């Protein structure tokens, strides 16, 4: 039971990732094969054409785990909030 609860995460999408996905946030149950950010992106792409399009170029997708920038190889275990977005353009 506690194991399953830990695999529930909130996903957030920003800027053109949000527009392509068609939603700003959702709650998902991560499947067992998803260990890293990179795995998560691979799995998300299987969820429909809008996801496949949004994540078609993983090299321009940035990720934050619980509001901290991370690299694609970082493990997602324990994260409650995972955000995907393009390279930032503020300032």
């Amino acid at each position, binding site marked *: 039971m506690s194991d399953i609860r830990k695999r529930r995460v909130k996903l*957030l999408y*920003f*800027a*053109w990732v949000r527009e392509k996905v068609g939603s700003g946030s959702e709650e998902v149950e991560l499947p067992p094969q998803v260990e890293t950010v990179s795995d998560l992106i691979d799995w998300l792409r299987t969820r429909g054409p809008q996801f496949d399009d949004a994540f078609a170029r993983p090299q321009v997708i940035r990720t*934050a785990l619980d*509001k*901290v*920038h991370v690299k694609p190889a970082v493990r997602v275990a324990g994260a409650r909030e995972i*955000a995907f*977005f*393009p*390279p*930032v*353009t*503020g*300032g």
Partner: protein
Amino acid sequence: MAARVQQEDFDAAAEVAALTAGRTDIGAIVTFTGRVRGGEGGVAAMTLEHYPGMTEAELSRIEAEAHSRWPLQASLIVHRVGELKPGDNIVLVATASAHRQAAFEAAGFLMDYLKTRAPFWKKETDASGNAVWVEARQSDDSAARRWS
């Protein structure tokens, strides 16, 4: 040390006055103000999106990093979000130190890091009404790398 995200405009003078009020140990204050450029090569309108919660956290981390690198007596970051027009303020960075070099370098560092790390995204609308997400610039990445 303070970092804010807001829709409303800021008053750079009032912000700096509040930052340095009653202090006589400050010898140098540097401010950077970023504005929406219109006209030729500029935009008709701009929308700034951000990641609430992470933005403030990231700005605070960047500011703390600046304070660990330079002897700063005060600093401030204010960044706007929402709909902006040509001539509107976007961002204010202010640094105060005993000496000018620290204030200059820290202000440059804050802007370079903010540009590459703070989760803001600009969508620009041109005169014909076409809206496009601004692409990150290679030059911003290399500007940020000079501090590492």
